[in-house]
């Protein structure tokens, strides 16, 4: 047994070395290490400032045994220590959650002021055969076509406020995709769960017509039936994007049915300045006293909770002060209560692979507002990509 393992290891090393010598390697390894120095200044009592540090490491290994087969595994490792762990009740449990079929979340160690955690957020095999593509395992199913809110993204909805997770969570699913043209495909997704009422499945058909990408979706998101559409088109240089989804519970007749829809536009001024603006309508949102955004738990369970209020608006600008400095400012607001979340960022390229940035989430609202000011959040980030 031992001999066999050693032999396999040697063989694997040989394969690795051989394939690295080739122009296109069968293996790809990449990742990053980020250090986030977080500062939270609570409001109205501003006397005690909370500070916290997160080391965030991502490892990604991809193996291409043949040109039609691919294996991908990615892990997100985090070491969090400081005041947040003390301040937030059950923070470790909150981080150690995996909403997928398999539990691939590992809480290695935690104490009063630290958490060491790993989640495998990709673990999948992809088979490409002609126009077919089948992906099985933990993956990101991305049906969104808009850039801020994605009502069509029914398998793994994502919060705009989860700024330090650009890769976004994965989910355990089987995806079968058929590419029917250069810019069109049909995809069926099955997301298993222990009960039928928590199982999700859906189909999407995306096609290109009059230089527009258009998609229709239909499916079952846990105990809700859903149908929707989305499109993107360039009009006068600007992109116009929209997504609309309808949801209705098939279990609880009293649960209101409703729609979640977005309309947005983005435009590039050519000198690297880029603007976007959009509006979200969420019929599941509340008119008044809608509850607050929780910056420390940004996981969104469904498109119906993309906002707390009925309407949200968003606008943002990113630019370039020379090739190295990238400033940005975005604002998400609830027009009903007038509260705003401002997200200013400034990022500096230190070398080809090292970036340093200063970011903040600034909230303006009253305590009953969606973007209630319970404090301001600022963080300094250093990131090394390899």
């Amino acid at each position, binding site marked *: 047994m031992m001999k066999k393992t050693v032999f396999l290891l040697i063989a694997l090393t040989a394969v690795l070395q051989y394939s690295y010598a080739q122009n296109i390697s069968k293996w790809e390894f990449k990742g990053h290490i980020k250090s986030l120095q977080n500062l939270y200044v609570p409001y109205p009592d501003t006397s005690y400032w909370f500070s916290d540090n997160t080391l965030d490491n991502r490892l990604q290994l991809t193996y291409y045994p043949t040109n039609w087969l691919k294996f991908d595994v990615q892990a997100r490792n985090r070491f969090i220590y400081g005041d947040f762990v003390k301040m937030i009740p059950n923070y470790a449990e909150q981080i150690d959650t995996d909403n997928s079929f398999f539990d691939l979340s590992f809480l290695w160690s935690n104490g009063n002021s630290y958490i060491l955690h790993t989640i495998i957020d990709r673990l999948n095999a992809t088979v490409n055969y002609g126009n077919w593509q089948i992906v099985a395992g933990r993956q990101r199913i991305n049906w969104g076509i808009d850039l801020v809110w994605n009502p069509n993204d029914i398998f793994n909805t994502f919060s705009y406020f989860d700024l330090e997770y650009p890769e976004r969570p994965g989910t355990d699913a089987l995806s079968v995709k058929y590419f029917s043209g250069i*810019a069109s495909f049909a995809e069926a997704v099955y997301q298993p769960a222990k009960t039928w009422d928590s199982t999700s499945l859906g189909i999407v058909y995306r096609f290109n017509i009059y230089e527009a990408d258009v998609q229709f979706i239909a499916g079952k998101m846990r105990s809700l039936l859903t149908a929707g559409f989305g499109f993107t*088109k*360039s009009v006068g240089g600007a992109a116009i994007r929209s997504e609309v989804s309808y949801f209705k519970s098939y279990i609880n007749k009293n649960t209101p049915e409703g729609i979640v829809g977005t309309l947005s536009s983005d435009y590039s001024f050519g000198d690297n300045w880029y603007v976007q603006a959009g509006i979200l309508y969420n019929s599941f949102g509340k008119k008044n006293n809608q509850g607050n955004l929780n910056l420390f738990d940004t996981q969104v369970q469904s498109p119906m909770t993309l906002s707390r209020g009925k309407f949200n608006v968003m606008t943002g600008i990113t630019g370039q002060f020379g090739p190295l400095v990238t400033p940005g400012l975005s604002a998400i607001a609830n027009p009903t209560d007038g509260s705003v979340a401002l997200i200013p960022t400034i990022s500096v390229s230190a070398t*080809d692979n090292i970036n340093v940035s200063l970011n903040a989430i600034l909230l303006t609202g009253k305590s009953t507002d969606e973007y209630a000011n319970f404090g301001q959040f600022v963080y300094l980030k250093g990131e090394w990509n*390899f």
Partner: protein
Amino acid sequence: MRLIFLSLFTAISTMAIGQDATDIVKRADEKMRGEKSSYSEMTMQIVRPTWQRSVSFKSWSKGTELSLVYISSPAREKGQSFLKINREMWSWNPQMNRTIKLPTSMLSQGWMGSDYTNDDLLNQRSVVTDYTHKILGEETVENSSCYKILLTPKPDAPVVWGKIVMWITKETYLMLKVEYYDEDLMLVKTEIGRELKTMDGRLMPTVYELLPADEPNNKTIVTMNLIKFNIPINDSFFSIQNMTRVR
């Protein structure tokens, strides 16, 4: 077969005798990119007085309308790809498994922070179809005798330049110098071809320097590491399916 060669030869000689400005630009353009298709591996360095950054990519193109670019470094951007079909453009982000359609205004945005625009990279063939051409005279560039040609955009052409002036070698049809002017006809940048070498059987500049007019200490250097002309490639290669598969 001989007939094809013969007619090709006749076509070439006719062009040579006519020396029509459009033909010269077309031949120079095709020489750089392949008459039918090409594959290239390039490194682009952004050079400033105190620092430099570089981006490497692979690029496939066919005809004037199909283009696919894959970024192979730096690490953060590695794996991203861009597809252009006619005037439509998509980007692929493997990290979040997202294909998005880009606004056409993105075409004039600088490529990865360089002095090259997306349009330069994905749409350069339009120098033939989107402009009218006129020979202004003959000048010597880097010891080579060149035609100096003025390119004026056709009405309603979807281009970002007000005019372009090109210096193309008389014997070998190489673009050794190109000046790009904005809509107010102010010089924006100058492109200079250097280090003539034979790549895939063709003599061509293997290093291009791009010098912005208003910032004399800045430049972008594009080095051709590998180029293959007229590779067999189907139109279906340029698809959103393949955009997620190339590497």
